């Protein structure tokens, strides 16, 4: 064979590897490849929970792509916003698909984040040294709720207008600074074109930048600490390093991608069968539309606001509700520090019961918000409390009689 001298000087290199060497020298790809090789994912009963973070990341990617596409036709002004979204739904090819996927994906994303939070709590993945992963995760949840709230106004329809009016008014219920927060959020006393511009900027510039930064920290922490393994699993295998695991690349990533592919298919089906509605154009002097209610992920707060009497302990209705949910948020934020026994896998009875109660209350209040349950506040509290007690008792009985060593 008559090879050129240069090629015969590099006998061991398969075709293409010279490019690899060229790029690696300049970009340090080997270091990345080593990092990817090193990352492993433990395999146990709760491994399915590990998919939720990746699913949220995928849906966020969908939001970024469809959001950028929508911004190409959307016009953030009270005169044009509604008309431009209508044009997206009727004139732009596949505009209905892109907008419906954006709306559906937003809802699925919030749902996945709620589940991610709950499962992280269940397996106590927040324990030392992952407290900041928990806190950045909660900040991300708050950011995505803000995404949902700010994006809701953009089509400038009657529902959006009143949702924003009510939502910002509730923010005005925060003690002392509420009045100024309201002015800042609305850019004035009322919801106007300035509010729309402000929400648009929030939705497409400010929140994305902040989210990328916090998400970067969150993902860095996940890489740094690796996947958290629940205590019962560690105990069963007799040590963290003895728990079986699979490589992240390609084994876990491929499983992730199967989930993403299914999610994409689900989004396409939802968008095709249930295209997102547009409603009627906002009329600042019209009455609030009948049966107006926020998106499902805000319903529990909406229902609580409806049920709470006009005055509680000398506080106005909205002040009391804002104060209550702020305190709940604070407790959730401090969970890694309140759960003292987490580090050694000791019992977590009070927090577990409170969390069970909170989840039951979330379900009950969402039912109230949907109009499925006609409950007073006391009835809601009692019903969710009883449900929590029954669930806790059932769990204790299950552990006692089934003899599951996982139950601590």
């Amino acid at each position, binding site marked *: 064979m008559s090879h050129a001298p240069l090629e015969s000087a590099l006998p061991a290199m398969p075709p293409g590897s010279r490019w690899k060497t060229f790029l690696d020298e300049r970009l340090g790809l080997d270091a990345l490849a080593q990092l990817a090789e090193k990352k492993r994912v433990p395999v146990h009963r709760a491994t399915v929970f590990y998919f939720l973070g990746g699913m949220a990341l995928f849906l966020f990617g969908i939001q970024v792509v469809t959001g950028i596409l929508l911004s190409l036709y959307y016009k953030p002004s009270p005169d044009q916003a509604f008309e431009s979204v209508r044009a997206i739904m009727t*004139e732009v090819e596949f505009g209905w*698909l892109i907008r419906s996927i954006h709306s559906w994906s937003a809802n699925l994303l919030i749902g996945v984040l709620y589940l991610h939070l709950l499962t992280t709590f269940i397996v106590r993945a927040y324990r030392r040294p992952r407290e900041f992963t928990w806190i950045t995760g909660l900040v991300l949840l708050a950011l995505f709720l803000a995404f949902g709230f700010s994006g809701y106004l953009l089509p400038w329809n009657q529902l959006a207008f009143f949702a924003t009016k009510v939502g910002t008014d509730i923010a005005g219920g925060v003690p002392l600074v509420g009045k100024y927060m309201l002015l800042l959020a609305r850019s004035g006393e009322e919801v106007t074109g300035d509010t729309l511009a402000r929400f648009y900027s929030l939705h497409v510039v400010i929140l994305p930048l902040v989210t990328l930064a916090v998400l970067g920290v969150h993902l860095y922490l996940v890489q740094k600490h690796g996947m958290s393994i629940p205590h019962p699993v560690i105990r069963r295998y007799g040590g963290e390093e003895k728990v079986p695991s699979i490589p992240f690349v390609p084994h876990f990533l491929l499983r992730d991608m199967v989930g993403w592919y299914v999610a994409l298919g689900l989004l396409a089906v939802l968008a095709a069968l249930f295209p997102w509605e547009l409603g009627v154009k906002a009329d600042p002097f019209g009455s609030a539309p009948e049966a107006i209610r926020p998106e499902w992920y805000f319903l529990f707060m909406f229902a609580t606001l409806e049920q709470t009497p006009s005055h509680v302990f000398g506080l106005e209705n909205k002040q009391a509700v804002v104060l209550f949910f702020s305190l709940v948020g604070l407790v959730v934020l401090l969970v890694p520090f309140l759960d003292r026994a987490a580090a050694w896998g000791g019992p977590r009875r009070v927090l577990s019961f409170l969390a069970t109660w909170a989840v039951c209350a979330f379900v009950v209040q969402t039912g109230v918000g949907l109009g499925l349950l006609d409950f007073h506040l006391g009835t809601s509290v009692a019903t969710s409390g009883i449900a929590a007690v029954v669930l806790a008792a059932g769990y204790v009985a299950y552990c006692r009689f089934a003899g599951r060593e996982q139950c601590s």
Partner: protein
Amino acid sequence: MSDSPTPVPRRNWLLRLLQWSIAASVAAIFYPVVRFLWPRPATVSGAAEVTAPFTVEELKARYARGEVPPPFNFDNKPCLVVLLPDGEIRAFNAICTHVACTVAFRLDKKDIFCNCHNGVYDLNGQPVSGPPPRPLQAYKVIRRRLPNGQEEIVVSRTA
């Protein structure tokens, strides 16, 4: 016993199926996105003719004051109307043939000038100096007497 693996046709078939499925999925994702990005059909249709927003008499009066009216919309393009010293009226598509700036009539120099790259046309629309490669597109002009005695200017595309 042989160490060299023999090709397994069924596995190849599955691999081929996987590859085609991935290709089809990518196509199914990109097709709507590309169609979405493609511009909508124009909602404003081009008019066949348009009446200038000034009459011949008004144009004369404005020239006398040293003013030149800006181009107006004809067929979604700027239309420049020029009143020649001998009283003739000409109309051009005011888009410069160089890189599509909008040209202006210079009353003092009696030429048509493009501010972007110093292109100069004469009052027939022919390029005189500077970068423009072709003459300006000329339109047909009809003068129509109004009941008030003034003449309006109707611009249409040359057939």
